[in-house]
């Protein structure tokens, strides 16, 4: 039982923080959001730091690191509310490394690690909500070749990605496939998202696909859990910064002749924000440290974590805006952008009520971290 970071992990944190502070300022971010919500150049800079290969084995051109390193990076990107969907590099790296046949790994892992290929998970369908097996996309085999039909929604940076990891029903069973964006029968319709980022609707019509694994349910559940852990860590970074922005504002802003940080009604709300932040940080640690646990244990833990994070994110975001007063609801001032990021993260990889349901249905007679 140990929650200290190693020196290497601290160095990793410093490197990412330095890039965020110097290379991803508020004005650059605003520019990227205006230009569509995704910058290949910024994504390339993240790749230059080696981060896109974090979960990819060294033999395949990556860093071969684990969930704690992933968490550290996500926290720092969260502090800068970075728009580029870096969590997708973690998911794609881990899912391909863990489940794909050798040829597919060889073709994609080095390019994901180098940042040349952005591969994103395209698993959401309108009718399925969070039920993986309600998938309507279908896969058809002709010899070794597969084609996919169907549609996926809100695919991160979907019209910018090189390829998609797509779940589809193959002979009544969920399987995972890799689909290239430029393949025939693949169409995307891109749009901006509430946090300033980018997503797309994906349509597949008789689109050629490579089989990633026939055990799609296992791999997809794992992929989503990696996404949840990454989202939790990112949210901790966003909340940490949201609180420090709020504290700075409260110590500067004067009303009735004094700094508003002197008012007890407001101070107690800050204490409650700190509480939610630290409960969230605790559960983010929990999520990442349970990421390599057996599937059942992992699922239960990740649902607990995302529930806590959802509650915390909504509270911290709403209170930050309220404590800022009028300036908090303007586009010009930075805090509203943190609030919108938190709101979007609450809805990413399962919203709060969904995860409460997961916790509820997976409840056991025992209680606690180790139960």
């Amino acid at each position: 039982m140990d929650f200290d970071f190693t020196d290497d992990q601290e160095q990793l944190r410093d490197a990412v923080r330095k890039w965020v502070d110097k290379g991803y300022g508020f004005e650059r971010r605003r520019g990227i959001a205006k230009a569509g919500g995704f910058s290949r150049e910024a994504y390339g800079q993240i790749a230059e730091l080696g981060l896109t290969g974090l979960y990819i084995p060294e033999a395949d051109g990556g860093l071969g690191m684990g969930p704690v390193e992933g968490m550290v990076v996500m926290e720092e990107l969260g502090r800068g509310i970075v728009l580029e969907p870096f969590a997708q590099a973690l998911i794609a790296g881990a899912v391909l490394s863990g489940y794909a046949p050798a040829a597919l790994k060889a073709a994609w892992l080095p390019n994901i690690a180098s940042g040349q290929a952005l591969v994103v998970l395209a698993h959401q369908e309108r009718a399925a909500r969070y039920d993986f097996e309600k998938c309507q996309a279908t896969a058809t085999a002709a010899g070794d070749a597969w084609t996919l039909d169907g549609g996926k929604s809100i695919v991160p940076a979907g019209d910018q990605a090189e390829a998609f990891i797509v779940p589809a029903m193959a002979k009544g069973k969920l399987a995972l496939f890799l689909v290239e964006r430029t393949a025939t029968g693949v169409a995307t319709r891109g749009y901006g998202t509430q946090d300033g980022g980018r997503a797309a609707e994906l349509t597949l019509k008789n689109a050629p696909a490579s089989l990633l694994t026939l055990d799609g349910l296992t791999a997809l559940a794992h992929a989503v859990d990696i996404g949840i852990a990454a989202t939790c860590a990112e949210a901790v970074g966003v909340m940490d910064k949201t609180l420090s922005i709020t504290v700075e504002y409260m110590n500067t802003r004067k009303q009735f002749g004094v700094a508003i940080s002197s008012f007890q009604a407001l101070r107690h709300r800050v204490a409650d924000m700190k509480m939610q932040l630290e409960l969230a940080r605790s559960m983010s640690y929990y999520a990442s440290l349970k990421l390599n646990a057996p599937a059942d244990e992992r699922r239960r833990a990740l649902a607990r974590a995302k529930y806590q994070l959802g509650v915390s994110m909504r509270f911290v975001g709403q209170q930050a805006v309220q404590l800022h007063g009028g300036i908090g609801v303007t586009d010009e001032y930075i805090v509203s952008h943190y609030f919108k990021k938190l709101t979007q993260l609450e809805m990413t990889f399962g919203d709060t009520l969904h995860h409460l349901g997961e916790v509820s249905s997976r409840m056991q007679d025992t209680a606690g971290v180790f139960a």
Partner: protein
Amino acid sequence: MDLAFTPEEQAFREEIRAWVRANLPADISHKVHNALRLTRDDMQRWAKILGKKGWLGHGWPKEFGGPGWNAVQKHLFEEECALAGAPRVVPFGPVMVAPVIMAFGTPEQQKRFLPGIASGEVWWSQGYSEPGSGSDLASVKCRAERQGDKYIVNGQKTWTTLGQYGEWIFCLVRTSNEGKPQTGISFLLVDMKSPGVTVRPIVLLDGEAEVNEVWFDNVEVPAENLIGEENKGWTYAKHLLSHERTNIADVNRAKRELERLKRIAKAEGVYDDPRFRDEIAKLEVDVVALEMLVLRVLSAEKSGKNSLDIAGLLKIRGSEIQQRYSELMMLAAGPFSLPLIEEAMEAGWQGDFPGGLAGDAPLASTYFNLRKTTIYGGSNEVQRNIVSQVVLG
């Protein structure tokens, strides 16, 4: 980073578990697991069993006869005791006054008082709060006047938990009115059998007399019972408050009670009602998050790092959770928590409880009783002041 305890810590846990299983009397754990009334004898019996093993002062260093465990070992010990259904150790002697005597007492005072605390023979009480000094503890008025080789104590303490059993009491007394209120306070040990000490139980909303008023009327206390220097008592009291930071969260008890809540909900037929079940699920996450917070503080202590910014959160969250599980237990029973049948809260009662589940008898009483948790030990509003001070400056 690692969530798992080390093999050595696991082995330690197993050792504790085996010992507790072999030594905790079944009649006592039955009462604890079912929230039945514990007697003075129950509490002291368990204290003496621990004392004999040398574990009543389980947080004590070796030089004072303690086991010398680190923060994690202490946590594991407390967890195993709580999960097995051991009564909470009455903290005033071994957890509160003993560390002060160790840090600031003379060798004579240590020799005189510590053995009785370690063995569980002597029952200690706490004399801090007064009618006019609750959250504002530094305003205490209970006065101790030096006359030769003794102090004459006059005044009143209140909220003295289990003071009706107390043999000794440690008090914050006013020895000077000069300077800031904090600088005129002394830390005095008083024999409760002294002439002029009167203990009057206060009946609480659950009908129990858990706390007391303690009156001092010209009570003579030998000057040798003063801890440290006169007028430095506030410093010693703060030292006391800095001890056992994780203990106040009571997360181990919360885990035990959450398991009990699930059993109650099943017995009451509401466990599969989604509305009720989701409330338990929320509490389950609350308990896991609190446990993670506790483990983070322990880990920081293990590696000698400062965890002050999060330790202040433990009391707030822990007390809220205690109130919540007791609330849900009562709600699970619904109207069957309403009959007030005193005898049904005693072990071995064989009567016919309205509705048929005798386990419902103490649920409302526990709910009422635990309202205290957000008030005592520095009210949660005072705790929020402290937390916001750390965050906002």
